Structure formats: C-alpha cells, structure tokens
C-alpha cells in the first residue's frame, strides 16, 4: 500500500486520483502507524514551507525518517520535495527532513513569482525516476521557492536561473513539479516510482 501523507496542508485528491488511475493500492493518511507500514511513501505538498512543521508535531516526520531508513521508496512532491532539503528561505526557522543538502530559495526579482505553468525539463540520462522521459518534456509547476542544483539533481528547469526540477538518491525521489497534473509525462514518472 502506498501512503499519501496528509499533514493538513492542501488537497491530496489529485495525487490519489492519479495513483488510482495507475491501479495502485493507496490511501491518504495522517497516521504515523499507517505510514510506517506502507510499501511506498508519497509526501505531496502545496502552500507554505512552515506547514511542514505539523509533520514534526504529529510524529509523521519520525515515521517517514524510519521508513526511509528501512529502504522504503519515498517521493516528495513540490513542497514535499523542498522539505527533503535542510531548510527554506520561505520559513528559516522550520527544519526540513535534511536528507538532501542545501537550502531552498526564492526566485530572483527579474522574473514573476510564483512560477506557474508548463515548463521544460533538462533530464540526466541516469535518472531512474525519469526513465522514458525525454529532455525537453513539459511538466506543470506552481511554486514560489526553488531548490538548488546539487549532486542529487536529475532534472533541471530554467526560470530566472536553473533550479532542481527533480532529485534522486538511492530510494529517495523528489519533484518540484506536479506529476499528477503533468499529463502523460507525469503518469509515466509515477508509474516508474510505483515499480521500484
């Protein structure tokens, strides 16, 4: 069973709908025990980085960390991916999970923010999550902060400079865009994740 972690921020129906469409057994849950017993964990996220603080209060952060420690595949989406980093300028006092190095930052004043719409991926051939997704593919973004390009970046996007559109290390995956809203390309990526 895939656990879609609900920490009270935003609407998780779209992610569930996409996984249902792919024939995956999945459930939206805010129970640490259910996260702990899941075979895969998806952390969606919209809204403010500070809203991830409730993960800590509710014990979900510990459940996610334990599950990652046991080698369970994890996928962070949007703020869920940003949370995998150490911190974000959006809420400097909020600690991320810190499994990836770096800090999420705001877009420069030279571009409109938020970054909303379909933009292109520059894909690293080695990516397992993006297997079958060509460079130049369009995916749907909506965010005001962005993750830096680091050694774990497997896809970049260009908007007021390059940023991480997808990250991956071992069984940890993160995407800044919304695969559940990115048409066939997004479904392909989710299918890849489900097969790990």
């Amino acid at each position, binding site marked *: 069973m895939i656990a879609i972690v609900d920490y009270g921020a935003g*609407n998780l129906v779209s992610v569930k709908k996409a996984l249902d469409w792919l024939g995956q057994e999945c459930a939206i849950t805010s129970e640490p025990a259910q996260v702990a017993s899941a075979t895969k964990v998806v952390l969606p996220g919209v809204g403010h980085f500070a809203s991830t603080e409730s993960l800590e209060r509710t014990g979900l952060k510990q459940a996610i960390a334990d599950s990652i420690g046991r080698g369970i595949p994890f996928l962070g989406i949007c703020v869920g991916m940003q949370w995998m980093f150490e911190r974000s300028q959006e809420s400097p006092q909020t600690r991320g999970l810190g499994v990836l190095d770096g800090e999420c930052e705001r877009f420069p004043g030279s571009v409109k923010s938020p970054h*909303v719409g*379909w933009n292109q991926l520059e894909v690293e051939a080695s990516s397992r999550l993006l297997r079958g997704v060509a460079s130049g593919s369009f995916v*749907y973004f909506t965010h005001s902060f962005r993750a830096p390009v680091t050694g774990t970046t497997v896809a970049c996007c260009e908007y007021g400079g390059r940023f991480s559109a997808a990250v991956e290390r071992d069984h940890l995956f993160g995407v800044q865009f919304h695969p559940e809203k990115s048409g066939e390309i997004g479904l392909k990526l989710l299918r890849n994740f489900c097969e790990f």
Partner: protein
Amino acid sequence: MLTKRIIACLDVDGGRVVKGVQFENLRDAGDPAELAKAHSASGADEIVLLDISAAHERRATLLDTVRRAARQLFIPFTVGGGIRTLEDAAAVFSAGADKISINSAALADPDLIRRIALRFGSQAVVVAIDAKRCDGEADWEAYTHGGRTTSGHDAVKWAREAEDRGAGEILLTSMNRDGTGIGFDCELTRAVADSVRIPVIASGGAGGAQHFVEVFRDGHADAALAASIFHYGFSRLVDLKQEIGAQGIPVRWPC
C-alpha cells in the same frame, strides 16, 4: 522555457456544457466530462469548468460533474461558479478540482480569498474578475452575478487587492468582448497584468490564433482562455497551438 497556457473553458448549466454570446442565448455543447477529456487530449494546458447555473439545488449535480470530469483528467482543473464559503470550496476540491475560481463571493467577502488560500494554498485560489469598460473614474469596473451587477470596484485595483489577500491567479474576462470573437481586450489585460505579480488569464473575445498571439505579446497575459471556439469545431486546439507557436510564442508542443 515557461510557456503561455491555452485554457479550454466549459460553461456548465445543469450538468451540460453551454456557451452563450455575451452571457445570453445559451446553446448545448455536450457532456463536460467527455469534453474535458477531449480538450486535454488535443493539447489544452488546463481546463476551467464554470457552473453558470449556480442555483442551490444544482450543487449536487455540479459536484457529480466535477467528479466525473476529474477522474480522467491529469492536467490542472479549475472549477468556479457559486462557491461562496470555505465549505463550498472544500467540497469542490474533494470532488477533484485543483483550483477554485471565485468572483461575486470574493467581492462580497474579500476575506474569503485568504481563508481558502490558508487552507488550500494560494496556487488553488483563482479570483475571477468580469470587467466592463466605463466612463467613470476607473477605466474598467468589476461586475458580479454573471455580469449583471456592477460592484463599483475598479477592476485593476481589485486585482491588486485580490493578490494581496492571497489569490494565486487572476482570471480576467472582458465583458465587452465576451462571446464576440473579435479578439481579447489587450488594453485591459495589460493594465491588470502589469500591476500584479501573479499570473493573469485573459478571457473574452477569442476568435482565432492571432488573438492569442496579440494578448500574449501586447496584453502581457500569462494564459488565455476560450470556450466556444473549441466546442463547435471552429478551431481545433492542436492547430491553434501550432499556429501560435509558429508566431514565436512559447507554447507546450508536442503535448
């Protein structure tokens, strides 16, 4: 490169898609779930469903329509019409919408924008503004209730206020152009787009590819929405996007 979005709009009354000329003389153009899927397959970047009936007894029908349309839709899906409270919005999100669009209710209760944004995120809140040219102090006034009542608000100032209150996007309809097919109101669109930082979706007046090119280039729109030109086969989305792309506007292609 970030592309300009082409949005297909479904005006729905009693669970069926209709489209009027300047909000009158509605014609039936089919099943919303089927049309949404067809638009997505032919390259729409996003789907907006506006319930123009909004009569209380029809809410259940709308939620059922949203649920049916959302099930097979994997691109952004916005639903508007008759959303007056946080609870109304929550019901529409549970049915599968990614964003809600509010118009009259936001003008009557501007704090509603903040309340929905707080719970669902700003990216999920689209404030729709029906703007009509006027001779008063403002160049355009925001209208409510399907364009029947003036709110007395300056449309440009209202857009700025909506942004400050937490709106994620502005859906800007020119009442003067709606249903005419003579082109978007680029002047109105530019006035709003240049005074806010959030994306502005231009609406009202689309008749052909050139109109989209103009509203992106001269109107500074981030996205443009049309309804009737797609429903009746006047212009297929695939051809439209290719034509717009050929004129140097970045669009998502192939989809």
